[in-house]
């Protein structure tokens, strides 16, 4: 009996330390335990913001400090509240170098640290930034930017036209080869410079000299275009034109961008700390011409969305980006539902047709399929409200959006009528129809089955689904000869000018339109007006008219815009929600965000 007791005791001794260890060091929990319940309820109950922040701060510090080995108290501070906006980000960025970055999670960091010649305002209009004004010549082939006087970097050093010339040069340089380099290909000589071979020194230097960007004086940047480009002032707002300092890049070598000291910026905030996979902090740049209201920003990286939600609830985050799978739970949660916002992103997805392949070479058949799409149910039920339905091409919030487009909305009768009017007359006469989709995302199958079922239910058409790895799907979609009869696809905007949506995609000489076998001379004419006129209002009107023609022609039946979605602590105010704000609301106009205690 005694032995047995000893054994039992031994077992307890073995298990206890593990439980205690997993339960985090006991001394740590002692002070936290009293405050923890308050903090938890405070976070969940969306108690008045005033109550929330103070509760969080004290809990945070005692819990964090011992964990952190008390040696270094200042580092425990960044997650505490105050006038710093704490933003949840999912994946840690691969590279944040203005001329090399290509993902929005990278660009959002750069856009706080730097500023281009122009910037986007809360309506996605292009407004003066480092340049106080710009002017096109008559045929929109030369654009002259005049910088604000006395511009400074965050370290106080002067920012001049040469810094922007360097940005353009570095972007077009084949030695840089950033994935977004082609966005400046309207600039004379940029395409040539990008395809020059670095080792062929003479040709490389000639290509570099041929680049159409110059600084006649410290306050003037002149850009020579390869063809008319009256939208180029918007392109000048993009991250590829951010003036990272040449000496810092050359001194820091390939990994210069990892050092906050080398990322001397001219934007509203300044990198202050970069801790890989954990957190990136910014402080306000007081040398910026339009000082921000916040003291700083913290981008906090949490891959696991459940952990991120817990961090939000315990008061460690101000903005939380839910995973699509969490949307129903967030919407049903009494507290979170009122703090949840969702708005259209700068993307459009629709049902894409190969307009050269039967039966979709017949406009009436395309109409029948467009009418048959129940977009609302698709977004609400199949995609968990991760999207909002649309009937037009340019998303809401982007210049050129057509709010009046109502054609081809879900209408079973119209769908049947269109099919009856087609050259085939009925569903039985249609040839075999295959819809291709990428199997990489497991959710894709259910999504496509829903669409296929819709066509069966509404039109009586059997659509065969063909699931392939996404690389095979994109390979097939690169050529009209192999382009699938039916597929879902669309466009993600690069910059908020209708040219990027209409001409880049639907002009009959654009690769994307050609792949679908689309082209309409009447639309091309209108795009030409938009692509060459310097009258911005006339341009937008021309693109909108072209868009009407394209929607009528139905190379694509627009279905939905994926949404930007966040849970935002009510202490945060003054943020904009444009389609381009896809990492946090107000990212492009972060100077106006404030935190009210």
């Amino acid at each position: 009996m005694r032995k047995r007791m000893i054994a039992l005791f031994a077992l307890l001794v073995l298990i206890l330390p593990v439980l205690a260890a997993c339960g985090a060091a006991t001394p740590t929990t002692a002070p936290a335990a009293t405050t923890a319940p308050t903090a938890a309820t405070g976070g969940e109950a969306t108690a008045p913001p005033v109550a929330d922040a103070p509760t969080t701060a004290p809990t945070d510090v005692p819990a964090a400090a011992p964990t952190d080995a008390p040696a270094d108290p200042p580092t425990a501070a960044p997650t505490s509240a105050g006038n710093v906006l704490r933003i949840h980000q999912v994946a840690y960025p691969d590279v944040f170098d203005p001329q090399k970055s290509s993902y929005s999670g990278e660009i959002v960091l750069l856009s706080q640290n730097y500023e281009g010649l122009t910037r986007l305002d809360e309506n996605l209009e292009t407004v003066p930034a480092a340049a106080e004004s710009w002017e096109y010549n008559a045929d929109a082939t030369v654009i002259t930017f005049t910088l604000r006087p006395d511009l400074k970097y965050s370290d106080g050093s002067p920012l001049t036209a040469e810094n922007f010339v360097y940005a353009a040069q570095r972007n077009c340089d084949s030695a840089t080869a950033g994935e977004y380099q082609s966005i400046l290909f309207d600039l004379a000589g940029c395409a040539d410079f990008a395809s020059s071979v670095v080792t062929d020194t003479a040709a490389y230097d000639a290509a570099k000299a041929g680049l159409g960007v110059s600084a006649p004086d410290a306050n003037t940047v002149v850009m020579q275009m390869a063809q008319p480009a009256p939208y180029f002032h918007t392109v000048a707002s993009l991250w590829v034109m951010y003036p990272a300092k040449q000496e810092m890049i050359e001194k820091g070598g390939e990994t210069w961008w990892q050092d906050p000291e080398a990322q001397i910026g001219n934007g509203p905030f300044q990198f202050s700390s970069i801790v890989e996979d954990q957190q990136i902090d910014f402080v306000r740049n007081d040398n910026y011409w339009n000082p921000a209201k916040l003291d700083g920003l913290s981008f906090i990286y949490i891959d696991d969305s459940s952990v991120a939600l817990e961090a939000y609830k315990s008061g460690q985050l101000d903005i939380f980006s839910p995973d699509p799978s969490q949307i129903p739970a967030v919407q049903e949660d009494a507290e979170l539902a009122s703090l949840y916002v969702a708005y259209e992103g700068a993307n459009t997805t629709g049902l894409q047709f190969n307009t050269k392949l039967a039966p979709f070479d017949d406009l009436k058949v395309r109409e029948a399929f467009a009418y048959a799409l129940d977009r609302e149910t698709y977004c609400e039920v199949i995609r968990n409200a991760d999207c909002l339905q649309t009937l037009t091409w340019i998303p809401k919030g982007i210049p050129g959006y057509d709010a009046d487009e109502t054609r081809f909305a879900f209408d079973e009768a119209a769908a049947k009528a269109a099919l009856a009017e087609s050259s085939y007359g009925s569903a039985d006469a249609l040839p075999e129809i295959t819809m291709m989709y990428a199997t990489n995302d497991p959710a894709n199958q259910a999504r496509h089955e829903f669409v296929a079922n819709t066509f069966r239910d509404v039109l009586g058409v059997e659509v065969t689904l063909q699931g392939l790895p996404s690389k095979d799907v994109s390979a097939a979609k690169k050529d009209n000869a192999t382009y699938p009869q039916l597929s879902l696809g669309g466009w993600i905007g690069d910059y908020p000018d209708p040219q990027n949506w209409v001409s880049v995609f639907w002009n009959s000489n654009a690769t994307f339109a050609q792949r679908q076998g689309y082209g309409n001379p009447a639309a091309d004419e209108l795009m030409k007006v938009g692509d060459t006129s310097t009258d911005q209002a006339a341009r937008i009107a021309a693109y909108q008219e072209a868009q009407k023609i394209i929607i009528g022609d139905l190379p694509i039946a627009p279905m939905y815009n994926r949404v930007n979605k966040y849970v935002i602590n009510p202490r945060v105010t003054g943020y904009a929600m444009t389609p381009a704000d896809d990492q946090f609301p107000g990212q492009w106009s972060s100077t106006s965000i404030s935190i009210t205690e």
Partner: protein
Amino acid sequence: MIGFLIRRILAVIPVLFVVAFITFFLMKQAKGGPFDQEKEVNPATVKTLNARFGLDKPTWINTTAVSRASDQGVANPLTLTRAFLDSQFGNYIINAVQGDLGPTYSSKGTENVQDVIKRKFPISLRLGLLAAALAVLVGLPLGILGALKQNTIFDYISLIVATIGTSVPTFVTGLLLTLFLSRVFGVKPIKPIDAWDGYSTAYIAPACILGLNTMAYITRLTRSSMLEVKRQDYIRTARAKGMGDRVVITRHMLRNSMIPVVTILGPAVAGLVTGSFIIENIFRVPGIGDEFVGSIGSRDYSMIMGATLFFALLVALGNLTVDVVYGFLDPRIRSKS
């Protein structure tokens, strides 16, 4: 012993080469490339990037370079061999031998694979060693207790712990522990940013979850191996000699039942120290496990190769250590080698 060690270390080289070959082959079978994105990259840029990363070269051997060189009158066999090996695989192996695992594609070539490993591996190593220590320190006694007190409450407890450890996936246990710590103890998910710089309490929770599976495995293995040894003749002999319980258990039973446990420990520790994608994501550990998994999806060829070779090297070292330890546990094995 020294000769044995040298022979075993040399044997690692062909193993690594074969691993490199197979990984390279499989990697090239997967469709797509590192520069494929949701938004298409301009063909001119892709061409420049392919040239920079040597992806414009043939995959295995470069016959065109050889014929070009011989056309130019090059007769030096070394130069010709180098031209022959001026392929993606050939260049990779030649650079890897010199310690250069190549630039990562995800960083747009700004970082080298060995730098990423150097930076992130220490964190995974600390976490993995803690997890391994935990697995052994808890698993071993639990298994012994289970065997000595077979079919008693201790045995059942050890069985329950082991079953949970094996069957509940880490994304469940990890998340439950995170939520439990946050709600009950107020240990919030976001740790101070320097929490991972050295050993700190931040490692404990992820180490518990990471070591759970191995712990369960060790428990069961120890138990069954102890039970087997318990019935051996030499144990009966020892007891007949009148040896005390303690000596029989520690000197005879335990030592002899350690062989299978030590065998799995080598590869298990290698697995633990290379991190876990899931645990790193849940506990926000900036370790190397994330790179291993992420590189495959993004077709980061050099990272895939570097990570696989590094893992293979660790497994080889783990097995080597196991072989050395065998000698101490069982003299019969030592004499054979």
